[in-house]
């Protein structure tokens, strides 16, 4: 006889794993996004291509100072690690001149298929230095000899263009490029023709099989070099940097470069000061309002509560515009002091930041048992004493949270600032404005660097709020 089958357990023992997987995936996506954008910023900063394009025309040196005609070319381009020498045994030295109109203004008409210089081009050349040679020690600069120049760079560069001049024509102008190991990696010749004056541009779309360390130019009599364009690494690494490449990247990142800019330093200073003032002002206002709203019920309480939330829900731009409009009704004297000046920065930050501080302070006071004050009152305190001696010390953590929250809000404020305070460099420029301005001029590196400064500030605030503030309300 078959035994009656045991009743089936109808509860399906499904796995809990899909549930937790769902939680993990949905929540995790967001967390990854948060961490991801921050890491991307950091990665961008430290992996950013720091190379810079340089266009040397021999008129201005590496610090953008004018070079006088007749100067010897010595250390003017040291910053790029560039040294220029003539062939040693000739005794010639590289010299910059622009008084060669005697050679240039020859009577020649441009011809359609001939790359010689037109008169206009020649006139333009008159105001530019070109590289020629002089015979040591005090000889006159001249174009009459064939000369060989050696351009050598401490760090290999990417050559883009070399501009040479040949006023005689008929003889060859030769360029040879060498790699760091001394291997020849490129060779060009200026085609010889009968033209009297020629401007030749040697263009390199791609670096000729590797970076260039040395360039040797053989100029025929009547040859000169008018300029060159190259891309270099942005800095000459010192000896230790080869050993500590990471530290080197850190030091030469756009971050440090941004920090070195005076207008960014100004905006950091202004941000720190204005945010701190805003935080203090916000606390100054938020403590009484928070206490009032938390402890007392009066006619219009709910209305007041709603009004206090307006700055939080209002679009930031509208806050700025409304401030601007409101100040139109005030006397000109006040308007001139505030609008588009530093007070406007603080006021715009304060308008929004304070609302958050008020909310936090109110929550703080809500959490403090009203019986503490009651006891204090029976112990002989006046209302003020009870507030000042009992409630306020107890609210100090909440106050810290409120202040840091206001500080962080103020740091990120942008819309109202732009409208009400403007975005004038070295005047009303705070960090958020800097990001905007740097983006506008296309300096993404600086914008990201400043963003990172703000991220750092915000993270510090977060840490302060987490460690010393009330945890439950920390932002």
């Amino acid at each position: 006889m078959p035994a009656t089958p045991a009743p089936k357990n109808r509860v399906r023992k499904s796995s809990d794993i899909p549930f937790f997987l769902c939680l993990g995936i949905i929540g995790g996506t967001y967390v990854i996004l948060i961490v991801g954008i921050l890491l991307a910023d950091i990665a961008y900063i430290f992996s950013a291509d720091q190379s810079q394009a340089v266009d040397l025309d021999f008129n201005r040196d590496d610090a953008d100072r004018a070079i006088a005609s007749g100067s010897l070319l010595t250390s003017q381009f040291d910053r790029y690690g560039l040294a220029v020498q003539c062939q040693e045994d000739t005794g010639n030295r590289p010299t910059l001149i622009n008084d060669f109109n005697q050679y240039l203004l020859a009577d020649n008409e441009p011809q359609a298929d001939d790359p010689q210089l037109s008169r206009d081009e020649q006139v333009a050349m008159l105001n530019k230095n070109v590289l020629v040679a002089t015979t040591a020690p005090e000889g006159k600069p001249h174009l009459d000899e064939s000369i060989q120049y050696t351009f050598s760079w401490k760090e290999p560069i990417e050559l883009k263009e070399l501009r040479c001049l040949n006023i005689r024509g008929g003889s060859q102008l030769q360029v040879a490029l060498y790699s760091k190991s001394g291997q020849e990696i490129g060779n060009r010749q200026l085609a010889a023709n009968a033209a009297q004056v020629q401007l030749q541009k040697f263009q390199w779309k791609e670096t000729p099989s590797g970076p260039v360390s040395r360039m040797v130019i053989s100029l025929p009599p009547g040859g000169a070099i008018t300029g060159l364009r190259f891309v270099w690494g942005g800095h000459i690494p010192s000896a230790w940097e080869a050993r500590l490449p990471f530290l080197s990247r850190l030091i030469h990142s756009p971050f440090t470069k941004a920090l070195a800019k005076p207008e960014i330093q100004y905006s950091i200073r202004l941000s720190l000061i204005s945010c701190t003032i805003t935080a203090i002002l916000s606390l100054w206002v938020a403590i009484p309002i928070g206490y009032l709203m938390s402890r007392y019920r009066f006619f219009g309480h709910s209305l007041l509560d709603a009004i206090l939330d307006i700055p939080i829900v209002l679009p930031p731009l509208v806050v700025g515009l409304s401030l601007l409009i409101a100040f139109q009704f005030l006397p000109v004297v006040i308007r001139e002091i505030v609008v588009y000046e530093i007070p406007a920065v603080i006021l715009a930050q304060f308008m929004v930041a304070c609302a958050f501080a008020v909310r936090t302070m109110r929550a703080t006071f809500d959490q403090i048992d009203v019986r503490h004050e009651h006891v204090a009152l029976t112990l002989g305190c006046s209302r003020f004493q009870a507030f000042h001696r009992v409630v306020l010390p107890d609210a100090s953590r909440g106050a810290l949270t409120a202040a840091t929250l206001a500080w962080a809000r103020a740091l990120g404020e942008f819309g109202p600032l732009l409208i009400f305070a403007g975005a004038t460099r070295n005047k009303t420029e705070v960090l958020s404005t800097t990001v905007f301005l740097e983006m506008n001029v296309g300096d993404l590196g600086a914008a990201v660097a400043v963003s990172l400064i703000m991220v750092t500030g915000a993270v510090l605030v977060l840490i302060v709020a987490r460690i010393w503030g009330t945890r439950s309300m920390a932002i």
Partner: protein
Amino acid sequence: MIQLNDIAITAGDFQLTEINLTIATGKYGVLMGRTGSGKTTLLEAVAGLSQVTAGQIILGDTDVTDMKPSQRNIGYVPQDGALFNTMSVRDHLSFALTIRKTPSAETKQRVTELAEMLEITHLLDRRPFKLSGGERQRVSLGRALSFRPTTLLLDEPLSALDEQTRDQICTLLDTIQNHTGVTVLHITHSLAEAERLADCLFRLEGEILPDSDFQGKVSPLPAATPDTG
């Protein structure tokens, strides 16, 4: 003496009317009532923390109905102590005296005296979050007694304590009253507690406060402690 004459209290939807109660000077009055019957509200009215809509409150021989809490000279021990989180035990005991600008030598002496009486000398430098339930009540009591009030209001001081601690605090309350001769109004919902401590017992039921049937049961003492004065 604590005397309430025809007291009426309105707090939102809650109402108490025609409350009468008298506790003679130096007596230990216990007020019983269910949760939500308005005991605490009544106690707060006596302390001056909530307004009465009608009636008269007399403490000692003064009509204090319109006085501020600070002027009523009452010691108030709310439920679970309500200690000040940022202050040490010593600060608690000296707080009322500091407010009164008592000379520091005198304050010091009073703190020592109180700490000895309440057996909390070893806790003087602690902060509230490091105190046990019983210790908290002792500190709260000490704080309320520090300025030698004539009236002591206790709001369920024993409800959150375990059996043994409750016993200790009961004994302490007895001792305190013997020592200081303070008039006590003690709120509780525990009959055992009431019988142990009360010189006179009241029940708060609904809107009226009858001097109850238990009025006669002045400390019949289920426990071993002798009668209170």
